[in-house]
């Protein structure tokens, strides 16, 4: 499993919201991409995660 570009150990039964909670991510302040699916803040479903998933968890930052 790849999360934000880094490998992360997958475990059976891991679900997206559990992962976010572990990572201390506020799911109302982040968007999430799993594979090609993209989820909006506050609308992130509690889907099951596969070992092959590539996950991006992003937020809005300063920029020009």
């Amino acid at each position, binding site marked *: 499993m790849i*999360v*934000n*570009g880094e490998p992360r150990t997958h475990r059976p039964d891991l679900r997206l919201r559990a992962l976010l909670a572990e*990572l*201390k*991510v*506020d799911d109302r*302040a*982040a*968007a999430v*991409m799993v594979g090609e699916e*993209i*989820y*909006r*803040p506050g609308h992130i479903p509690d889907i099951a995660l596969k070992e092959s998933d590539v996950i*991006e*968890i*992003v*937020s*809005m*930052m*300063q*920029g*020009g």
Partner: protein
Amino acid sequence: MQDTLTIAGSPFRSRLMLGTGKYRDFGVMRDAFEAAAVEIVTVSIRRVELGAPGHTGLLDVLAKGKYQLLPNTAGCKTAEEAVRVAKLARAMSGTNWVKLEVIPDAKYLLPDPVGTLEAAKILVGEGFTVLPYMHADPVLARQLAAAGCATVMPLASPIGSGRGVLTRASLEIIIEEAAVPVVVDAGLGVPSEAAAVMEMGAQAVLVNTAIAEAESPVQMAGAFRKAVEAGREAYLAGRMPVRAHASPSSPVQGVVTLPQPEVPA
């Protein structure tokens, strides 16, 4: 009668867009935004730092609905990366506007013309409102407009360099031919440079480093606001002709001369 900037059907009174980068703190940024009377602000999309408490300072300033957000794709080196980040940006920000940046190298941060056009076509096709950052290349500007971009954003000089308007002749052609608003982006260092491109007929400018790195960012933001307004008003007011020679401002009749110059009567 109001002078309005219209982008993708939305009207704006301000012609000064601001970036949110490099401010020493979000309080200064907020005050600078007030001083600038800004309506459109850029943000970036970045991976959340995992396991760390989030900062909410930026989001607090960008309170819902106060500003038109303009997420950028800064950091993307290819069209494909930019399209992907644009989609994440849309999900994250709730707007379909995107400042498209496809920038393959780090030293001068100059954009890739081919990759930018390719990504612009894809994003327009997916319903984005695309404002592409680009070299001041008039042919590319025409192609981006033809591809459905909402504006073109040619650069004045490299991002964050403060070197001012190094692409003047090309900007003039882009403005002359533009089918969409021309927003001059990148490299402006002082307000007079913003005024100068507005006088040339640019529709707006985007500024970040020149305000964020000023000694007094809030005062500088106000200065940029006035300069952009001055430039726009001067453009509308119609400048005087340029002359090779002098033209006296005082009447040439009735001068009190001495009978013979150098030899008083």
